[in-house]
């Protein structure tokens, strides 16, 4: 991601992104990802990672508690369904706002410290929210059962507009279009594109510049007389709102909410998505989210039978060894793969896939240049005379 892109290039990127996303059902069918449930996940976690990237990628503040906002957004959306209307737009607005409010509280406390303290604080506060969802807040969260819709919910607005769902459990619908399957995906995709656009505007804005300055040297920024806290808090709240929105979308596509969404492993997952794709780049988190969800889907489906077939070409004893080793990593063991991937990426490619692409591109460019023309003799260094004072 070049820092100095022109507005035209940005528009091209946005258009390209939208086209790819909207055509995803066709593009991804050959690799076995062309079905709506998975595509919805791509979009939802893409939004989540985009938001996380605004905080982590730009300011460098590593939050380990972002799943809390995701969970809160889900709860808020389901409550909106229950109390007001099955219209997803209202639910998403509420989810975003509640996610934002929640992140104001957590951000206000945890942004008093930076660095490791900040990570630990966000982790602790998120874990506290998770515990509360199981204990104190059970009237709101319905504890371990999870929050579900019921036929007897009031749904004030739906009733006021004369919508009756009859004897079936209602599902969320946008003026009559049900939010599951492909309509659900396209609904998510449109929101995803809007979020991407917003994220792009933030990256290019003076505000985004400020956030980058926080990352590169916070002290120097304070010395120039700027108060850093409002900027970091704003970034934190924006990313909290993204997470709330993503949580809301989860509830829209599948109207129930459980506390396990708030667990810190979920927070770790979004960190991994962002890192894997490339923190601080615009497209990176989106790619990271896609890759992780895709491989989660594939790896979880593997089992020993499939593996045995896969290694069929090997001699029997090798086949057995390969199957028993690799079966650790698939199916139930997907988390092991996730953890190992985490380590490999951080150790060898801290800039993520985007950095990898860039490296390969520059490598290829260099090779091509060498092929076509002999390296020119280096110009004698031109000495520009210092202008006389």
């Amino acid at each position, binding site marked *: 991601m070049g820092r100095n892109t022109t507005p035209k290039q940005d528009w091209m990127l946005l258009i390209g992104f939208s086209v790819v996303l909207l055509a995803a059902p066709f593009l991804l069918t050959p690799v076995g990802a062309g079905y709506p449930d998975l595509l919805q996940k791509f979009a939802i976690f893409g939004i989540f990672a985009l938001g996380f990237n605004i905080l*982590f990628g730009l300011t*460098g503040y*590593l939050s*380990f508690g972002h799943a809390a906002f995701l969970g809160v957004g889900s709860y808020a959306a389901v409550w909106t369904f229950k109390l007001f209307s099955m219209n997803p737009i209202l639910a998403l607005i509420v989810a975003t706002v509640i996610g934002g409010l929640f992140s104001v509280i957590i951000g206000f*406390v945890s942004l*008093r*410290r*930076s*660095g*490791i*303290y900040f*990570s*630990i*604080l966000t*982790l*602790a*506060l998120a*874990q*506290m929210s998770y*515990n*509360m969802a*199981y*204990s*104190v*807040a059970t009237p709101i969260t319905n504890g371990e059962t999870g929050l579900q819709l019921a036929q007897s919910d009031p749904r004030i607005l739906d009733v006021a507009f004369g919508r009756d769902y009859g004897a079936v459990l209602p599902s969320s619908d946008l003026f009559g279009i049900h939010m599951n399957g492909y309509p659900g995906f396209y609904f998510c995709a449109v929101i995803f594109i809007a979020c991407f656009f917003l994220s792009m505007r933030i990256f290019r804005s003076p505000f985004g510049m400020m956030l980058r300055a926080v990352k590169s040297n916070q002290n120097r920024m304070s010395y120039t007389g700027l108060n850093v806290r409002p900027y970091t808090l704003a970034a934190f709240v924006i990313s909290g709102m993204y997470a709330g929105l993503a949580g809301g979308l989860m509830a829209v596509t599948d109207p129930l909410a459980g506390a396990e969404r708030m667990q*810190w*492993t979920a927070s*770790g997952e979004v*960190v991994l998505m962002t*890192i894997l794709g490339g923190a601080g780049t615009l497209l990176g988190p989106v790619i990271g989210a896609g890759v992780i969800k895709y491989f989660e889907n594939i790896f979880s489906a593997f089992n020993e039978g499939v593996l045995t077939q896969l290694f069929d070409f090997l001699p029997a004893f090798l086949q057995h060894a390969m199957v028993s080793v690799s079966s*650790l990593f698939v199916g*139930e*063991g997907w*988390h*092991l793969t*996730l*953890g*190992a*991937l*985490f*380590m490999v990426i*951080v*150790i060898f490619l*801290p800039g993520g896939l985007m950095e990898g692409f860039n490296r390969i591109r520059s490598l290829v460019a260099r090779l091509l240049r060498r092929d076509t023309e002999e390296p020119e003799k280096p110009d004698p260094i031109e000495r520009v005379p210092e202008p006389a004072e």
Partner: protein
Amino acid sequence: MDDILLQILNGLDKGGAYALIALGLTIIFGTLGVVNFAHGALFMLGAFCAVAVKSLLGFEKVVLDPTKLTAWGTPVEIRTPYIEAWFGDFGTQMLNFSVPVSIIIAIPVMLLVGIIMERGLIRHFYKRPHAEQILVTFGLAIVLQEIVKSQFGANPIPQPAPEIAKGMVDFGAMIGLQAGGVVYPAWRLIYFLFSLLVIGAVFSFLQFTTFGMVVRAGMADRETVGLLGIDIDRRFTIVFGIAAVVAGLAGVMYTPILSPDYHMGMDFLVLSFVVVVVGGMGSLPGAVVAGFLLGIVQSFASMNEVKAIIPGIDQIIIYLIAVVILLVRPRGLMGRKGVMEQ
């Protein structure tokens, strides 16, 4: 009075575990400047050392006795652990004392694990940003956890305490109160004493040995120690190993109190971080004091009388305290100015 004493006792064993893990975290943080998110996994590995030793000791020889028949008409199987067959009563005692015996095994194992971890992974992250240190140790924690899960399964595996320590101790009578007022499980008391012992050992190691002196000097100013011709990196590797042993021992001895499962480390890790923050990052006494303090506070919060006033407070009290401390005293109880500010 008795109730209060009982709650304090209740807090002490959990507080002991918090203190031991937080102590190791602080040592690593103070010496290497690395936040070790895998420290909870070390605690868990220690606990599974006990599980492994127990199952190794418990290998059984199966003999069919054709003279006796079961209700199904098959010969009765007589199972005797090999260790009993070989060593007789001594073997029986070994089995009985499997948890304390595990300590002997756990110390070298954890030392090795710690040294391999430091040499193989953490070493390359000294100069990297804190965020990457956190992330790589987090990944390692997941990997360790999943490996244990694949070997030992996802269910908790109960570990019995030795017969002699299974009963209750009339603690009230011991300190001269009315007999029968404060009765407490013996193993939990042992755990508390054990944690004090380990803490004492670590402190005296750092305080009274030359090695400890060099380590403390390295914590204060690493470069100068290096300039004096001391290979501080090698010492720090051993320090990491010691921190791993401390966490591992905390895990081994905790198994009779809480049946180990693969995610126990993560649960304790988050709380231990809070303990470190409350105690003051980089302060060893702070970690210990805050560990016991939070353990006791938590046990008071889980009293029914307290829960009647504020329901669910036991789940969140520790986090609330951490938030309050951070707002009022951002450096923690015993943190010093300038230490680990960034």
